[in-house]
């Protein structure tokens, strides 16, 4: 949670500068702020309408950034810097990677790979399948499919150590056999089910089919030509593994006709060692052409969709902000035209042009700030909401389907507040300048 409250130094500087300008404005401005507040409350309908526009723009920005944040958290949370991921040379993704098992016998002997308490190298050879599952259609809806990511692993205890995955209480890893018999139904042959552990996200998604909040150990679901029995749910929130179904590799290979290995995951002693192991496997491994990289590097490449969504969010926000700026300009120009006489009186009382400018600018900032704070509060309601998306390494739209949690962090709120202040200044400056330029006697006529 602490990391969610961290705020980037650059944002602190920009926000600080913005707030400093506001404070200086207060110092320069001799017109009592109560005057502005009174004016805002007298024109309360217009004030509310303008403020609401700010609220909507900022809340939308917050939600959109929370989505992008969730995707970024997903890619960052999935990779361990000390892990190495090995794909076949040329493969852009696990689903396109094909490694022959016979070529991989020496991979775990590379220097730098950690050994566990039972003297086994922390090397997990995995097959990765994107399985097609028929969704139960709602009333009157056509049949649809969903894609479920299935990872076949040899030894769950090693895979768990390599990927740093634990199970939620009440669950257990699948057995050495990897299958078990289901209770015999009347008059039917006994069926077997593939034992599986599943991620938290996919547990929620598949739970919908059984009208449950999420699948629990003991639940059975259908995937491909077989039934699958959940033995445990992985504590995998915030990583791509949260959207995966893990089972015994031999069964996954058999069911989906993929006898080859997709991925080898290796755990090393640290980030530097991981880089050395990746280089060694890529350049010097003789039995097969491998493409090895640290997991951090691998997941960093899966950010093309994140960048596209970020671009989309910023594009929409900037255009919406222009709408908001024009709206607040309207309000302030109208306020000035109604208060021309007030301005004349202020000037005759001795208030300078600059103080009139600051007074009207502060009034705009007040609307913007209030609207922005409400927008941030409204947008914050999206924090923790789950949503499905895709992370991918290139344009093409195909990648890993992930179930992510929207993250509203301090940076998001800071960006929201910055936007509202920028909109306030941009929308208020021209009207304030026009107020500043009014001549006292002319305005009193």
């Amino acid at each position, binding site marked *: 949670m602490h990391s969610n409250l961290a705020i980037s130094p650059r944002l602190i500087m920009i926000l600080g500068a913005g707030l400093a300008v506001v404070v200086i404005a207060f110092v320069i401005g001799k017109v009592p702020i109560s005057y502005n507040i009174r004016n805002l409350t007298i024109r309360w*309908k*217009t004030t509310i*309408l*303008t403020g*609401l*526009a700010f609220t*909507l*723009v900022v*809340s*939308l920005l917050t*939600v*959109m950034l929370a*989505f992008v944040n969730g995707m970024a958290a997903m890619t960052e949370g999935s990779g361990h810097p000390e892990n190495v991921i090995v794909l076949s040379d*040329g*493969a*852009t993704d696990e*689903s*396109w990677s*094909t490694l022959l098992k016979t070529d991989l016998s020496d991979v775990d002997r590379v220097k730098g790979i950690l050994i566990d308490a039972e003297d086994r190298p922390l090397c997990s050879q995995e097959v990765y*399948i*994107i*399985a*097609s599952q028929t969704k139960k259609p709602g009333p009157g809806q*056509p*049949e*649809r*499919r*969903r*894609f479920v990511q299935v990872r076949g692993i040899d030894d769950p205890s090693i895979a768990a150590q390599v990927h740093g995955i634990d199970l939620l209480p009440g669950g257990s890893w699948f057995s050495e056999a990897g299958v078990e018999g289901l209770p015999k139904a009347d008059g039917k042959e006994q069926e077997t089910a593939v034992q599986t552990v599943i991620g938290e996200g996919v547990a929620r998604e598949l739970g919908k089919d059984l009208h449950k909040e999420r699948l629990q150990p003991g639940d059975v679901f259908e995937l*491909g*030509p077989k039934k699958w029995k959940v033995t445990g749910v992985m504590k995998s929130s915030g990583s791509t593994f949260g959207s995966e179904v893990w089972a015994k590799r031999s069964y996954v290979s058999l069911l*989906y*006709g993929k006898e080859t290995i997709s991925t080898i995951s290796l755990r090393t002693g640290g980030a530097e060692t991981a880089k050395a192991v990746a280089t060694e496997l890529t350049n010097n491994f003789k039995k097969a052409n491998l493409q090895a990289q640290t997991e951090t590097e691998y997941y960093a490449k899966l950010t093309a969709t994140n960048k*596209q*969504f970020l671009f*989309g969010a910023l594009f*929409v926000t900037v*255009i*919406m902000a*222009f*709408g*908001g700026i*024009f*709206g607040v*300009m*309207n*309000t302030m*120009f*109208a306020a000035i*035209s109604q208060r021309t006489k007030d301005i004349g009186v202020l000037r005759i009382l001795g208030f300078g042009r600059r103080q009139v400018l600051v007074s009207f600018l502060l009034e705009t900032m007040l609307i913007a700030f209030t609207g922005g704070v409400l927008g941030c509060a409204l947008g914050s309601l999206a924090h923790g909401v789950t*949503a*499905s*998306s*895709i992370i991918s390494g*290139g*344009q*093409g*739209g195909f990648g890993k*389907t*992930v179930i992510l949690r929207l993250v509203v962090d301090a940076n998001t709120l800071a960006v929201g507040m910055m936007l509202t202040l920028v909109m306030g200044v941009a929308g208020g400056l021209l009207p304030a300048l026009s107020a500043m330029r009014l001549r006292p006697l002319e305005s009193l006529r």
Partner: protein
Amino acid sequence: MQYFLTLERFLRFLKQNPQYGPPMIAGSAGVLLVLVFVGYWFHKYWYLLLKSLTRNLLRTGLSALAVFVLAIVVTLVWTILVVLDVVMTEKAKDFKAIVTERWQVPSRMPIAYAPSLKEGAASKPGDLKPDDNMSWQFYGGTLDPEKRTWENTLFFFAMEADKIIPMMDDLENLNPVYVKRLMENKQGAILGRERLKRLNKGIGDRFTVVSMSHKGIDLEFEIVGEFPAGRYDSSAVMNGNYLVDAMDAYPTTHNGAKHPMADKSLGLVWFKVPDSDAFSKVAEQIMSSSLYTSPAVKVETASSGIASFLEPYKDLLWGLKWLLVPALLVTMALIVANAISISVRERRTEMAVLKVIGFTPGRILGLVLGEAFLVGGASGLLSAAVLYGAIHVGMGGFPFQIAFFPKFDIYVDSLWWGFLFGTITSLAGSIVPAWSARTIKVSEVFAKVA
């Protein structure tokens, strides 16, 4: 959402049936004439509205600008939603269906499945054959194996050249000469404009692809054509037989061993049937056939298949439809409401005078609503027109990759969407201020003035 592309469909219909062109033009001119006549009938009303709007040009301009920019975003987002909705909606006729591997993606079936699948597995008298078909294999690789980048990576649909125009969507404008060249040249390739730009290649250039999808099968190509701007900007099509022949030749250079992809090269088979009954019949023929067991296959309508690939985007699309679009529309309405209510407040005396000289409350209401209608409608229409010009004409589509849709073109229907968004939000925003103008009490206003 199908109705949101009515104009586009109508224009396509006219393009395919040019004989209806002259009567349609005459009809449209007639409707336009009637509108002009009706407009002229109310010319005093329009004059009054314009005079009111031009009295404070700054306010009118700012409101119009706000509606203009917001309508741009709404129209863009709406385009994405409409296009995706249309492709996911089942058609009543001219059904397109796809056959893929049943249990996993990417689909990898033996190429031997293709001939019978294209015939809808029709084997008995009375079995139904599809009207048309095509098969797709996927072949991908890099032009620079030493330094692979996204720019030098290329993925092809390997297919029957003669099926490109009849079977692929939105390729009516593809130059038939390119297709002919592809049919005649086994090494030919047709690429999208953006793809050509990224590769820094043009028609007539040759290159070699070092395969990543079919290891050991590196192929030489000659670019024989380019796709029209839009949906296929990043796509590439090659001759399907070229890949099949290369796979067949592989054992001769590898001690008789088949290529690892030999039984997994077929990605999908498309077929076209006249209606849903025919689809069900052909689907039944395929699903009950014993030819397709390892791997098993699945038949679904194209719209259903596309919808499955869009499933991961469902929450994003929900957010666009139910959060972003309404929020934008509400923001537009708020901004117009603000401007109109300020305007009404400033013109209370004028409204009272109008009442004194005989304007009924209804006419005053109409006057205020009319101002909003003019500002909103004109800004919305202008916004859509600018967007259409910039994106449809200038860019050939808005680049925002969702699944296999790299770009979203702005349709001619966006013109009336923009008008609609502008007018509806402006009218919604001006109802309350217009009602308050209608209920102005003359005595109260003049008492204040006095």
